[in-house]
């Protein structure tokens, strides 16, 4: 009999995770991912993909944020520990987050989720004279240019469809689909008419420095070094409201200069390229269920899952599971099929 047609708008890490969760959990649905850009051209592909929490997001219960983080971490850790790790581009990564001033919360809410969380020793901190405090832990690094194709494959195995196309209005989807899931990131500014979504521009460099194994992140989020599978990601910038997609030479030099102060050996690294991504900034991510009314008066459920700023990878699976729950609820509210 007829399947419930679900469309997921957006093919970044949030869109694909959400689509996989729905397609695998709800065989009665036919799921389509509709996006104008797929990997390797999404914002997620620029992300370093290190799974880490920040300060608690305002307006969302800490317990909920914690669940999003933990569900994501556990999901990725399981992949990292499996035979799939290489094919999925998910690997374990150990390193330090360093602070110029001792933070008020030295032990963040996600401290028990990552592996081996501890405060840095004085000996470790000795290498960073400008810094007074540090956290050492092992987490997961999710390399989106590898992870997203793996998710796409997994999605197709669950009979999911990938479709390239541009959506200018969620309304136009109501004719061909029964449930709309909006994972359009920055695109939600137009698609959901949400002026609270804004770009937070991030520029990074990829360099060849295979001797580097540990990550280093300055807690201000402007300077970081993340060794990956094939290259090291060094960054970065956080320019709110900046829509420029082209890399800025001056910024690249400044990024490298800051990173070399933390890791002098980077001066010997070969530059592989520069990338820019516009993080979908928002005061807090939007995850909720709504009804969209068509001009004909039909009401179509919409599940929003967008606005993750720099936390898209770190919350991807946990929020996908919660979006799945909302899709399930929407299914019950749909009119049933007609009977012969």
């Amino acid at each position, binding site marked *: *009999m*007829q*399947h419930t047609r679900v469309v997921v708008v957006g093919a970044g890490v949030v869109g694909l995770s959400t689509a996989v969760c729905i397609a695998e959990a709800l065989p009665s649905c036919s799921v389509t991912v509709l996006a104008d850009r797929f990997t390797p051209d999404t914002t997620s592909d620029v992300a370093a993909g290190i799974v880490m929490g920040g300060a608690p997001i305002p307006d969302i219960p800490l317990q909920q944020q914690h669940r999003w983080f933990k569900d994501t971490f556990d999901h990725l850790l399981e992949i990292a520990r499996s035979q799939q790790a290489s094919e999925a581009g998910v690997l374990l990564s150990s390193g330090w987050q360093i602070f110029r001033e001792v933070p008020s919360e030295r032990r963040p809410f996600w401290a028990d989720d990552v592996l081996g969380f501890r405060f840095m020793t004085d000996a470790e901190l000795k290498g960073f004279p400008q810094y007074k405090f540090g956290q050492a832990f092992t987490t997961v690094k999710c390399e989106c240019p590898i992870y997203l194709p793996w998710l796409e494959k997994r999605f197709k195995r669950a009979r999911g469809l990938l479709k390239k196309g541009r959506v200018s209005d969620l309304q136009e989807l109501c*004719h061909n689909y029964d449930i709309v899931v909006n994972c359009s990131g920055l695109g939600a500014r137009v698609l959901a008419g949400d002026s609270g979504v804004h770009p937070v521009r991030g520029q990074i460099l990829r360099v060849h420095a295979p001797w580097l194994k540990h990550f280093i992140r300055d807690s201000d989020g402007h300077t970081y070094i993340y060794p990956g599978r094939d290259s090291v990601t060094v960054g970065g910038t956080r320019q709110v409201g900046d829509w420029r997609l082209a890399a800025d030479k001056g910024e690249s030099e400044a990024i490298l200069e800051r990173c070399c102060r933390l890791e002098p050996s980077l001066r010997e690294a070969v530059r592989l390229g520069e990338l820019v991504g516009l993080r979908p900034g928002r005061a807090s991510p939007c995850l909720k269920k709504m009804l969209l*009314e*068509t001009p*004909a*008066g*039909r*009401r179509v459920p919409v599940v929003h899952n967008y606005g993750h700023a720099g936390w898209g990878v770190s919350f991807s699976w946990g929020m996908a599971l919660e979006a799945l729950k909302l899709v399930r609820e929407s299914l019950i*509210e*749909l*009119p*049933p*099929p*007609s*009977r*012969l």
Partner: protein
Amino acid sequence: MEAEGQNLPNISPHEKGYYFHTENPYKDWPNAFEEGQQKSREGDLLNAVLLLEAAVLQDPQDSEAWLVLGTTQAENENEQAAIVSLQRCLELNPNNLQALMALAVSLTNIGMQQSACEALHSWIQHNPCYKHLLKTNNQLSSSPTNQQRMPHTSAQGSSLLVEVKELFLEAAQLNPDVIDPDLQTGLGVLFNLSSEFNKAVEAFNAALSVRPEDYLLWNRLGATLANGDRSEEAVEAYTKALELQPGFIRSRYNLGISCINLGAHREAVSNFLTALNQQRRSRSHQVMSSNIWAALRIALSMIDRPELFQAANIGDLDLLMKAFNVDI
């Protein structure tokens, strides 16, 4: 309010799974079957069901009574009762073509694709006009030792669907100048199973060209149009079905669903209330379909009247009918 058949002392094990009315005024009625059949034709589904239940309790081996009870329960929007009755009919008389077709329709409605295909396969197998197709086709299913008279269960339900669809298309080609409305109905069901709604519409229209007064066909056409996103045309088909048979509860329910799809939520509510009221138009609440209540709640949730939604939750039909001015 309903008792399971097996709990009643005078029911044979064959009737378990069918939920009989506990207080049936027609219990010892003479001619219960004939009168039940008559009531069913007149669209008095409630009395028809009671009379036919009395008939099968009086003679549990009466396959015709089980058949009419099954088709009546389908019209009454009670799919589970319809399926149990039709299966009972087929246990007693495995080559009853009408029961096989009705069962295929009911199984399709509840999403049992594989079983629906098997029923349609049996329909060809037992149909004097078409059964030779199976022999010439060297079907794996034509083995006489196959007691179930079913094709071998294929690993994929969809491959059976393809096989049976080809069989029906081949049957239609045997004599292209003459339309067999039953064969077209089977095709319509198969195209519904494969979500080829436009082709299913063609098949039901072909059947209707031979039987324009068949309200069941009008409803099947309507449901196909609705499932294929053509709700406006569906409303026309249901309207036709209800003109021919005003007591046709299934079509009234379907009309309500199309109203939801068209955003006409108040009309949807009215239709569901009418259907529920037709079902209970007697002494008790025991005969109303839970899926009509569920659809009613969906329609009510789209009208911002929480107190009415609450009334639906507790099953207060009178309050709702008053609120929406539905005539009793």
